[in-house]
């Protein structure tokens, strides 16, 4: 840091570097380094460009994948659903016509957009990254300004590689202390959201910091940043460190040789200056956290697995109607215990928890055990590369021996745009990111949890604390 400059947060450092031009004191033209697109939120952007007679301004800065609509079985066959097939074919056509790199269905790099960006080394510290998808915040784990946009904004980026934005406020969430055994980073982020609510960070860009965050692997960090949007944040990031550099080095599209050295030197300047001031700072202790589960219909309605659902007198009077509506949908009552509730489905996957470490954690837990008879389980890798790695490690066999099947990659039951829908009224414990009404299929009842809690539920058929098994075996 130059001694006569004001100390800056990592958010300011990256943001300010990408301002092309100020329009007025609060609004500027903002440059986007990497743009990801998928089949659902891009077709109207391409047709908008065509209607204006415009071309894609920087085709090599956009990367495409098909993930939301695709089946997770028999991917070598034609997509059965006509509208899904049309959307995927429209993406193929738009990419071909505009010279955009596409990792479409059956490509060895295909997968969920927020899984493939990092695993291919496309996502790098200091970048600005957008996608017509709110979980773009995932890429923040690498120290990037990454956030979801709407289709009009996808069109803007295609047309100009820029957006018109006002700078968000800055928040730092510090998590210190040691996370207990049987817990995952998913429990940290569900805990934070349960404390600050589904709108607790709206208007802010968040830096996650503290020793409990530093201790996490890159994949675990991605889970945290992925769910920043679930507390309303524009995005969330973690400053790059040795863990980040070790993850990126050697990946397909990572810088190499001299370029690596130059980029690394820049990345090391990114962390927030010691005296940098945030608009808001919050502090949490990781040792306070137990395995988390949600009980309601937004991700803020979560609690420690041994806790009871709040009673009406614990809820603000003006929120009573919404609280009751939510519990009615879920078929829960105020004051209910979560432990022991019967579950019908388990979904492991999504951009939140569909990476190899998640599959390893699940497979490690269920190894030598048997799936509960009342459970239907869908284990869905986040990408073709995750699928291949899982098979290489024999995870598919461990799963099969316990009565589980490893499916093919895609967004799957996280938003149920393909065939993977939880039936009406059924309970699903899901490692994904949203428990909204109907999110996993019309009438489906979702309870969000970590891959370890999902594994414990898959074995017992009921809401179960994964630590019960740990104390027995201490194997994990």
């Amino acid at each position, binding site marked *: 840091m130059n001694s006569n400059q004001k100390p800056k947060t990592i958010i300011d450092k990256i943001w300010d570097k990408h301002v*092309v031009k100020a329009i007025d004191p609060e609004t500027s033209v903002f440059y986007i380094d990497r743009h990801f697109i998928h089949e659902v*939120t891009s077709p109207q952007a391409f047709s908008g460009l065509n209607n204006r007679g415009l071309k894609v301004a920087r085709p090599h800065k956009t990367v495409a994948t098909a993930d939301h609509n695709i089946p997770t079985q028999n991917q070598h066959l034609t997509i059965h659903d006509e509208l899904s097939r049309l959307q995927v074919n429209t993406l193929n056509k738009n990419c071909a016509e505009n010279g955009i790199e596409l990792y479409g269905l059956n490509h060895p790099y295909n997968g969920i957009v927020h899984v493939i960006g990092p695993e291919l080394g496309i996502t790098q510290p200091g970048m600005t990254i957008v996608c017509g998808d709110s979980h773009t915040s995932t890429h923040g784990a690498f120290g990037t300004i990454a956030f979801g946009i709407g289709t009009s904004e996808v069109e803007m980026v295609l047309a*100009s590689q820029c957006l*018109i934005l006002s700078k968000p406020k800055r928040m730092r969430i510090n998590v210190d202390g040691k996370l207990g055994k049987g817990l995952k980073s998913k429990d940290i982020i569900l805990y934070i959201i349960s404390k600050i609510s589904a709108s607790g960070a709206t208007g802010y860009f968040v830096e996650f910091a503290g020793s409990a965050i530093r201790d996490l692997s890159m994949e675990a960090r991605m889970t945290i940043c992925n769910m920043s949007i679930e507390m309303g944040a524009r995005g969330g990031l973690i400053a790059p460190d040795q863990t980040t550099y070790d993850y990126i080095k050697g990946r397909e599209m990572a810088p190499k040789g001299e370029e690596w050295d130059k980029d690394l030197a820049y990345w090391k300047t990114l962390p927030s200056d010691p005296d940098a001031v945030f608009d808001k700072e919050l502090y949490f202790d990781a040792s306070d956290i137990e395995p988390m589960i949600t009980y309601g219909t937004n991700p803020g309605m979560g609690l420690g697995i041994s806790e009871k659902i709040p009673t009406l007198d614990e809820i603000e009077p003006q929120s009573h109607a919404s609280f009751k509506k939510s519990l009615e949908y879920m078929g829960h009552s105020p004051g209910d215990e979560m432990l022991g509730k019967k579950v019908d489905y388990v979904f492991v996957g999504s951009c939140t928890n569909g990476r190899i470490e998640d599959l390893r954690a699940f497979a490690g837990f269920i190894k030598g055990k048997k799936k509960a008879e009342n459970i239907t389980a869908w284990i869905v890798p986040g990408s073709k590369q995750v699928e291949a790695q899982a098979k290489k490690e024999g995870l598919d066999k461990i799963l099969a021996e316990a009565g589980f099947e490893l499916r093919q990659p895609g967004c799957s039951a996280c938003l149920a745009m393909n065939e993977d829908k939880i039936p009406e009224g059924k309970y699903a414990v899901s490692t994904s990111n949203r428990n909204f009404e109907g999110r996993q299929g019309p009438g489906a009842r979702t309870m969000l949890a970590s891959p370890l809690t999902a594994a414990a539920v898959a074995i017992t058929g009921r809401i179960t604390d994964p630590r019960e098994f740990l104390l027995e075996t201490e194997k994990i």
Partner: protein
Amino acid sequence: MPIEKFVKLTSTCVPLPVENVDTDQITPARFLKATTRQGFGNKLFFDWRYAPGGKPREDFVLNNPEFSGSILVAGKNFGSGSSREHAAWALYDYGFKVVVSSFFADIFKSNALNNGLLPVQVSEDFIARIFEAIEKDSKTTLTVDLENQTISIDSLQISESFEISAYKKSCLLNGYDDIDYLVSKSAEIERWEEADTLNA
């Protein structure tokens, strides 16, 4: 596609006093398979509006003939969750020009503004007054004046001011569109890229 101008509007309103209305409710995911922007109005709040099988749910406000108008008044944290712009398209296509809430999710707010749908953020007190007034008289009108950045409950003659970025305000008042602006700056963007490459 330039947006429609918005200057001033007086209308009856539709009350939806539910908090945390997420975009999955506004437009359920299974309707996102379209490749055009048209026709989302009849998908608006689909699973709240229709029972499985398609019968309208009588207890949902859009099925109650007593309430109509081009202003939706909703509980706090409206538009949370998915970035799907289909939510803004559905509201606009249905006929809403303004959504009033005490709190909006960020991405929804941008999407709404990019489609000429004005999100008006008011205080908790003010929105409680609006809900009360509608409960007393379903024909209560609100007036939203973008030029002066005010919203009024006409029968009570009370009003509150709301915030909007100066840039977005001018876009709405004039029907300007971000893409026209950005494309007009392409030379500056190119110069910035060249300088960035040299610095990098």
